[in-house]
């Protein structure tokens, strides 16, 4: 599906991002504008900016793909991504803003008066940022491949280059406006095509996901990346290149009888129009797809769901680019109001990918076959609407997807670069930040070139799990527990984050392909989050002498309204 429209849309989005970033703030020549300029960012703008930065490729493409492949259990993803902000609102947002800290390492230093904790938090932030950047770049590669047919690595490199150039050139000066714009762009890019898809679906007779098998509307080529077994319902005549049921064909016609057929790697099947779409042999079919905990590709669905819930609910607060935005709020109350806005905006947005997932289930189940479920959102307009209209809608979706990659990558790159610049690399002044930005983007880019294959939303889930088991205990206990000590904080964050990260790496390396070990490692949050909290509390209790002397003052500042907490700020430390 190579379409000039889509390439145009991607270029337009990239240009708009750069231009708003560079020019967005050339406001005011006269005095009256002085007030406009010196007014702080209001909750609505800041909320849109946070949402824009937060809605990544995982939200835009990944969720629909997961729902298509694994059924309704995956609705926990959008729910968890949103609920993460509820937890943030309840426990963290306002106190964090009142602390005056700008990043999690800043908070760690302010709260625990220890440089060692600061460094630990910095290393964790960089690690989580990289883990999160990986799937973004992968998603970009996938999108560009779907849209233009370019090799998989091109998209990631393009996004990495645009983001690096933008950040190092100081183009993210008005990052709040850029990110707010990206939110509305992403929402539009999903909403408008969905309306058309909805009409098309309605005029198609509103088929349900458990209805009879869908048929290909036009001649369609299915290409397998791995060996799969497919179930064929009615006899079909197809053109095959590759191996089917152990026999090799070279662009030869073949009649597929009803039943199970085994396809080898890199086999292409060319289905004629009107042919029934084949299904994966072990795929949950029909009504099973719509029932909770029915996914047979995951061995322990209930455990998986709990792992997902814990990771996403608690992980959001540990994402480096999320916490940074709260600094822009003038006070704790404004921070809380901003979070409320974010909850609303995310809630609206996340209605859409789920609908795409359901539509893809009806009209593009062959994607499950090839494993390319992440492109479900992108191919739907072509399948349902077709023609120039479909191409235009597809272009809008591709543009929205690129907005997702660019906004999330920019936010992450800035945060990770800030940490590298301040806490890791030797001081080099302004130029140091640029070098740090290059390093911040280059590391995950190289990783995407080496490692492939993890579904976008899965990899994001792992980043969430690491954040939930390391930075979440640090923030929550730091804000609410006066007996936290620096050794406790370091031990807990490293144990929780370290085990979750090790689990993520083992999963990526595919050391345990199945069984309980695989499930435990793929969804580490269930055990790593409590482990992080436990170690942090236990070590803190074992080192009561190390409670920082300024704890009472800092906690008072975190929890009292700004006007009240003003007086005891000084003294008491010596």
């Amino acid at each position, binding site marked *: 599906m190579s379409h000039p429209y889509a390439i145009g849309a991607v270029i337009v989005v990239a240009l708009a991002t750069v231009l708003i970033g560079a020019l967005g*703030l*050339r*406001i*005011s*020549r006269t*005095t009256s*504008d*002085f*007030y406009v*300029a*010196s*007014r*702080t*960012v209001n909750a609505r703008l800041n909320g849109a900016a946070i949402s824009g930065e937060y809605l990544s490729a995982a939200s835009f493409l990944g969720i629909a793909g997961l729902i298509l492949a694994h059924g309704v259990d995956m609705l926990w993803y959008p729910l968890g991504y949103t609920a993460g902000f509820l937890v943030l609102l309840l426990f963290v947002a306002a106190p964090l803003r009142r602390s*005056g*800290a*700008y*990043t999690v390492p*800043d908070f760690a*230093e*302010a709260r625990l*008066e220890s440089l060692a904790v600061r460094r630990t938090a910095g290393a964790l932030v960089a690690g989580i940022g990289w883990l999160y950047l990986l799937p973004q770049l992968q998603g970009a590669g996938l999108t560009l491949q779907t849209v233009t047919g370019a090799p998989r690595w091109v998209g990631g490199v393009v996004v990495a280059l645009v983001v690096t150039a933008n950040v190092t050139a*100081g183009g*993210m*000066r*008005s*990052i*709040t406006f850029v990110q707010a714009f990206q939110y509305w762009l992403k929402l539009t890019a999903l909403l408008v095509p969905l309306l058309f898809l909805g009409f098309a679906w309605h005029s198609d007779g509103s088929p349900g996901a458990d209805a009879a098998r869908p048929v290909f509307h036009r001649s369609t080529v299915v290409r397998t990346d791995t060996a799969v077994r497919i179930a064929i319902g009615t006899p079909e005549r197809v053109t095959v290149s590759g191996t089917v049921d152990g026999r090799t064909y070279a662009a030869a016609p073949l009649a597929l009888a009803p039943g199970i057929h085994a396809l080898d790697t890199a086999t292409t099947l060319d289905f004629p129009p009107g042919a029934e779409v084949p299904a994966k042999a072990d795929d949950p079919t029909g009504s099973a797809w719509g029932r909770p905990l029915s996914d047979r590709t995951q061995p322990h669905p209930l455990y998986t769901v709990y792992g997902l819930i814990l990771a996403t609910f608690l992980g959001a607060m540990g994402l480096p680019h999320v916490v940074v935005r709260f*600094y*822009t*709020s*003038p006070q704790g109350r404004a921070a809380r109001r901003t979070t409320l806005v974010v909850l609303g905006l995310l809630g609206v947005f996340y209605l859409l990918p789920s609908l795409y997932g359901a539509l893809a289930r009806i009209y593009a189940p062959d994607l499950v076959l090839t494993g390319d479920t992440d492109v479900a959102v992108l191919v739907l307009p072509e399948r349902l609407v077709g023609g120039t209209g479909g191409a235009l809608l597809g272009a809008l979706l591709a543009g929205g997807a690129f907005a997702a990659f660019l906004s999330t990558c920019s936010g992450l790159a*800035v945060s990770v*670069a*800030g940490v590298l*610049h*301040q806490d890791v690399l030797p*001081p080099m*002044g*302004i130029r140091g*930040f640029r070098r*740090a930005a290059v390093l911040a983007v280059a590391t995950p880019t190289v990783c995407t070139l080496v490692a492939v294959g993890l579904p976008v939303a899965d990899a994001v889930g792992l980043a969430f799990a690491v954040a939930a088991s390391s930075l979440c205990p640090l923030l929550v206990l730091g804000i609410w527990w006066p007996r936290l000590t620096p050794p406790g904080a370091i031990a807990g964050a490293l144990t929780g984050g370290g085990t979750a990260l090790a689990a993520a790496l083992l999963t990526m390396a595919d*050391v*345990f392909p199945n069984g309980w070990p695989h499930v435990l490692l793929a969804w580490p949050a269930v055990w790593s989050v409590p482990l992080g909290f436990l170690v942090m509390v236990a070590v803190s209790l074992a080192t009561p*002498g190390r409670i920082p002397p300024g704890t009472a003052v800092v906690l008072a*500042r975190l929890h009292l309204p*700004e*006007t009240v907490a*003003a007086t005891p*700020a000084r003294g008491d430390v*010596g």
Partner: protein
Amino acid sequence: MVQLLTLLAGVPLGAGAHWVLARRSRRERNRGTDVELATFRTLHTASLAAPPLRAGLTEDTARKAVRRLRPLLGTPAMCLTDEHTMLAWDGAGEHHRPEVMSKAAQVLASGRPQLVEVGCPDPSCPVRWAAVAPLKVDGRVLGTLAAYGPEDSPVLVRATGEVARWAAVQLELAELDRSRRDLIEAEIRTLRAQISPHFVFNSLAAIASFVRTDPDRARELLLEFAEFTRYSFRRHGDFTTLADELRSIDQYLNLVRARFGDRLEVALRVAPEVLPVALPFLCLQPLVENAVKHGIEGRPERGRITIGADDAGAEARVVIEDDGVGMEADRLRAILRGEGGPSHGIGLGNVDERLRRVYGDEYGLVIETGVEAGMKITVRIPKYHPGVRISPPPAPRA
């Protein structure tokens, strides 16, 4: 798979065991003589007691210090007092706590070490005699150190006296730390910029010129003036937000414009992300005042001032630029050293000094200028710096 895991777990364990063993055998080889070992041990114990004492004499620090000091003398009990109360007791015989102050009173008064008989009805109690030594700082007795033993020995008195003297030196250092901190704070406070008397005079004169021709404008300007002075005269807190500072600069520029009319052109570009950043109170206003002075005063043509604030990663960057007469590099250097004379740029040197004190030397002003080439001043402000906190405005007055 299991083998791989065992291997993974085994490697660090093996390495750790090897390290411990190697260390132990090395230690046994270089033991040193007994005297050397005793010296090391004493010095180590003393160094452990130093940090709490360096933080001053309080109940908390005394408790930690006395725990470290008692092994130095090897006495069954030890206690620390300040001038009025007993701070901490370590070791046996805690039932003697109430009588500590009565025994210490004489030492507090005389400032000389003393051996006192305690006497105890309990025959098993090791607390019979006390060697009480004063903690003298600058000739003043801040407290006492008492070591208790079963018999009266002159060695105990002498050893206690030496330990007390060592502890007193640490307390002296603590005092020094505190006064150094006070001094820096006092200096920062005196360095707080003040409105120049010229500005007050010029503003009032400019307002006066509007009183007949445009009373409304005069009233507005007077209100601006009141607001501006209220901000500048406020006494609480050393830090403010960039937003507040910019607001005050706006008021300042309105007053200046009343005097110069169209001759002053101001362009402003502020990234809203950096508005909540904390910065030293009144550290930008003097720079703008300087720009006004060099940009238009003493020149017949129009002057232009550009003020920009940008988000630069972990810091905010504020740039104040004018297109005025500029300055020679040598003169600028003299002004920054504080030798420029009262009429010129007290503000620049003062702001530079304050920024360096608060954030460190690498955060001083960066000034680019040349004769007839205008002047560009760049201020870098870390968004977060330990100890820098905004003091919120006082509750509005009724």
